[in-house]
């Protein structure tokens, strides 16, 4: 449904995007994960037909973009990162305007307005001005505005920025409903939990390039550890260097009185605890954690998502 091939875009000396390719089928959700400045928004701009690529091509349902008035644009809905709404107007007037931009009017416009209001749960606020809405409600209306013309592909540029967890869940419910309805979603975020929850496949971007693309489980296999063992100790432990050298131990970090040990396999947990006891450590509590997409990103780039 959405195919991008080898997209390049530079602004002066800055190569914002350098060779991005993506492929999203009907009913698929593709995540674009990366830190701020990774090139996600420029990529979305090219996918939406706003930014002309220096090189490469975008096709929606097999059709390329053909200028400002291209019919292909009707297949796309864009949810910008900003709350792109007219605060001075009622919610219904906002939706009517964005529907009219795609040629909707009359009964069809009214019908679509009711449909998207029902989807995002704001039907009872249709006549209220947007500036009376909470941040979460504005985010939901921001999503609704992109759905008025019932697009096949929805591009979501960080749609949950600054949203409280409850509203975020409401937006996720909306997106899952759209996915179930067969819409293709491309979702950019730097929140890995969101990407892991929603996306069928995730492309990790850094410095304008896709450095890895796979399913969540496929990406997690790129992590250098299978599991983390978090061990709370009763006192200080001084034999860190020897612990680091143990067979099967991939990494060790200390946070207060807790050791965080990355191991290659779960079979390493028993021998690790035995070794610690034999070397004078008093273990109070043990738990294990799975590696996350953050771990993968750190492994691939040497940086965390938030400080990148």
């Amino acid at each position, binding site marked *: 449904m959405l195919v991008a091939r080898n997209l390049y875009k530079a602004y002066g000396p800055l190569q914002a995007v350098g060779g991005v390719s993506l492929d999203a089928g009907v009913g698929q959700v593709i995540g674009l994960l990366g830190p701020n400045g990774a090139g996600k928004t420029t990529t979305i701009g090219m996918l939406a037909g*706003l930014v002309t690529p220096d090189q490469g091509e975008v096709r929606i349902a097999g059709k390329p973009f053909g200028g*400002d008035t291209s019919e292909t644009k009707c297949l*796309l*809905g864009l949810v*910008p990162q*900003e709350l792109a709404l007219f605060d001075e107007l009622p919610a219904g007037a906002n939706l009517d305007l964005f529907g009219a931009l*795609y040629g909707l009017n009359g009964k069809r416009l009214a019908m679509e307005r009711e449909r998207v209001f029902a989807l995002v749960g704001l039907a009872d606020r249709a006549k209220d001005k947007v500036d009376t809405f909470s941040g979460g409600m504005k985010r939901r209306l921001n999503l609704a*505005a992109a759905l008025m013309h019932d697009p096949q592909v929805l591009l979501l540029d960080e749609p949950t920025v600054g949203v409280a967890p409850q509203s975020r869940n409401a937006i996720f419910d909306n997106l899952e409903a759209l996915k179930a309805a067969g819409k293709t979603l491309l979702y950019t975020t730097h929140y890995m939990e969101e990407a892991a929850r929603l996306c069928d496949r995730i492309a990790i971007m850094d410095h304008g390039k896709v450095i890895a693309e796979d399913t969540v489980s496929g990406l997690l296999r790129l992590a250098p550890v299978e599991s983390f063992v978090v061990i709370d100790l009763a006192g200080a432990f001084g034999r860190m260097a020897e612990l680091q050298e143990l067979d099967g131990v991939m990494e060790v970090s200390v946070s207060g009185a807790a050791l965080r040990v990355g191991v290659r396999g779960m079979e390493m947990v028993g021998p690790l605890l035995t070794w610690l006891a034999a070397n004078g450590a008093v273990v109070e509590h043990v738990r294990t954690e799975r590696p996350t997409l953050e771990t993968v990103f750190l492994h691939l780039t040497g940086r965390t998502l938030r400080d990148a």
Partner: protein
Amino acid sequence: MTAFIALVRKDLRIFFGDRRAVIMAFAAPILIGSFFGYVFGPKPAQEQSRVRVLVVDEDRSEVTRGLLANEATVEAVEAGLAETRDAVRKGKAPVAVVVPKGFGEAAGQALFGAGVKPQIGVLFDPSHAVEASMVKGLLTGQMMQAVTRVGFKPEAARRAMDGASLLPGDKAALGRLLDSVEAFQARPGGSGGGGLSVPFAMADEAVTAGSGVAYNAYAHSFGGMAIQFMLFMGIDVGIGMLLLRQRGLWRRFRAAPLSKSVLLGSRAVSAMVMGMLILGVVFGFAYLVFDVRISGSLLGFLGVCAAFSLMTAAYGMLIAAIGKTPEAARGVAILGTLLMVMLSGAWVPSFLFPRWMQAVTMAVPARWAMDGLDAMTWRGLGVGEAVSPILVLLGSAVVFGGVAVWRFRWEGE
């Protein structure tokens, strides 16, 4: 077309939904136009303010008695020399007249070329130079009459003549003249020695739309204020477009299958509609309340209004194209607009400007709008006089609009 109409309707709805914007656009030009029209317009005699003049009469002779007392435009107040200078310096009196001791005697002698001409001191507040000139004119006429009235009395005149260094032949001729004057003044029903007065009267006529049609200052002031606030509306149009960009709305618009001409054109049309509404409301109010009439061509008036509205819309586009951020654009746009309004003659008539500046104002589109509105309202001129302003305004709109389209940042937003 659906999208175009929706975009125009959205702009108008936002405009009319903002009470502050509506007040600024409609009420402010009406209020300020009313004020300027009242201040600069002709007023009934009872409402005209008289210039307060302090008179220091140290001479107290027959010549200076009742100095400026019977002038309709002046309120003469006697004062002492000590407090007069201080009063003028503090702005409590715009003009003061100081007549030195011995003025009457010296003036009588000077009339026949004897002695040195005495001086009358005129102290004035520099911010009231116009009033000072008016007082000097009144003094000249009044003093000429008073000095000649006293000076031509036979005994005073002969005393002055004796003191003057005249040739014997001249003295004899002057003596005969005085004998004749004395005989003329003594005749039954004669003037009795009224002195020389200005031997003509002025017949003023303000050239307006027609003979006997009084000048209506509200026509100019309402036109000026409408121009000013339409240009302010143009700033709002430009800043509004920059805000669209900042708020991500421009990305959303661009994501829709709309041409650039629809996006910019709809904004221009909504600005034009707002501009025409401002002109309509402002001149409608002036018509109903202050009897301002389109004494010239209605077609020409509508043409000037439409052309200026289009130019204002293009001006707004230009601000949006050149401004990087709303904050940065606002300051520059306000400065540019105020300059344009000032040079248009909307605040003060452009004939008060230095000659070089008057030439500069011909390059300011708002000046042509002002001239066009004046021509079609109180000057009462025909449609032919509206053609040049309309062409200049349309040309300016094309230039502004062209630069706006050329410089507008479409990509990478």
